[in-house]
């Protein structure tokens, strides 16, 4: 395996000493990690801990104040946007669209969009092409956003709070869809604070507290090392937050 400094060029994502400041507020402080292929990684932290900011910087929606982010060695830009599929906590669709229009939009702009997979996922998610985006409930909207994000054959999927604000039934459906439709040679970075619902699917976790990375490791190793589930560990780390 080739090495480029401390990182392998086979790593999908390299984050090196990244900080982000909004005026006087330090949102992210000196974070470094790498992600290899074929993993589901949990980005865990309480509200306001910097998870969304990290995801936005990786996706190219925000610029780091200092540090470097690269996807397959390329700095974040137009090229990396075609390698990353981001599901933000805000809608990717527009209110005039039907579900079919949303799929066409993705198909028009992303060469890796798999229409057949999208239609299979819609079926799994109990959504129809004719449904109007503005009439979808929160849970159905989350399912559509997940369909759009996972129907691309991207190298890295970023899912920001995919379970936030949805009922337990929709939550189970979203988790099942994640496991069912995820491309095994790619990686998924999922930000959440609802650890108990989702920890079963994680290979690795990264815990972020007050903008700083406080833990990064393999889930099984962390469980053995601490003798606790990820949920218990999360509660312990964020006890005073």
């Amino acid at each position, binding site marked *: 395996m080739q090495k480029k400094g401390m990182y392998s060029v086979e790593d999908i994502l390299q984050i090196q000493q990244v900080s982000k400041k*909004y*005026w006087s507020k330090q949102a992210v402080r000196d974070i470094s990690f790498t992600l290899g292929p074929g993993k589901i990684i949990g980005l865990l932290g309480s509200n306001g801990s910097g998870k969304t900011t990290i995801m*936005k910087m990786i*996706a*190219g*929606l*925000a*610029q780091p104040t200092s540090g470097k982010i690269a996807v397959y060695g390329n700095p974040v830009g*137009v*090229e990396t*946007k*075609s390698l990353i599929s*981001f599901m*933000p906590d*805000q*809608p*990717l*669709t*527009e209110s*005039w669209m039907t579900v079919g*229009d949303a799929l066409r*939009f993705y198909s*028009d*702009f*992303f060469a890796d969009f798999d229409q057949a997979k999208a239609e299979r996922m819609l079926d799994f998610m109990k959504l129809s092409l004719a449904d109007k985006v503005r009439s979808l409930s929160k849970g159905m909207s989350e399912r559509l956003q997940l369909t759009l994000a996972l129907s691309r054959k991207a190298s890295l999927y970023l899912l920001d709070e995919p379970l936030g604000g949805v009922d337990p039934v929709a939550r189970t459906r979203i988790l099942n869809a994640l496991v069912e439709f995820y491309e095994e040679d790619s990686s998924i970075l999922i930000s959440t604070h609802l650890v108990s619902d989702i920890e079963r699917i994680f290979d690795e976790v990264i815990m972020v507290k007050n903008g700083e990375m406080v833990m990064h490791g393999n889930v099984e190793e962390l469980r053995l090392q601490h003798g606790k589930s990820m949920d218990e560990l999360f509660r312990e780390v964020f006890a005073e937050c």
Partner: protein
Amino acid sequence: MLKLMKYDFRRNRDQILGLYAVTLLLEAVIWILAEVYHWENLSMLVLQAVTYFSAAIFLVVLACRTYSTNLKSYGRKLIPVKTLYTVLSPLLLNLILLIVLIALAVLHVAIYGFVYPDILPKDFWYISFISVLNLLGAAMVFLIALTFSITVSHSLPFRSKVWIGILTLFVLNLILGLVEGQLFPDSGGWMELAFRYNFTSGEYLNANGIEAAGKAFDIGPALIETVFCLILLYASTWLVKKKVEI
């Protein structure tokens, strides 16, 4: 870029088509009222020109809103297209929509010319063509300045950013006016040239002729405004890439 324009149009399709329909309806109503109540030709033509001009203003406002929405849209910010295209697509769509509006107005005037063969002064079409080109140029300069101002306001992280955007627009117009005034004191920009013409003889609107007062096209100010637009487009693209965050 065409795909971006397609989705910009699709988002506002109902408003755009509605605007064209209402404009045509108003023009027809003004014409009918003028015939029924025997208005002077001048009153009718001024009202009709104001209607077209209002429609054009609405299209410019729509272009600004489209651009502003695009800067805040996750869907738009995540697609792998050049940042310049994000800046250019609402501008070009607006240019096309203005050309369509002008085409409707031309058709309208042509119908007048057919119904009332003596109403149009000699050289009317030539002067109108020059005037429309200058107006389109002026509209694009104004829209590019607006685009830059909107970009500036979106790149700031505090609340009163809208006022900074408005201030930016005023400052830009002031700078452009000062530079043009200093370098070409006897010439005008596109907007000034669009309305600079004389009726050569006869009564108003029954004139025998019409001609451009001075130059129909002024290369100096046009060059200055083109450079000004290129600088603003470059700066807007840089700001969208580096400073506008959502």
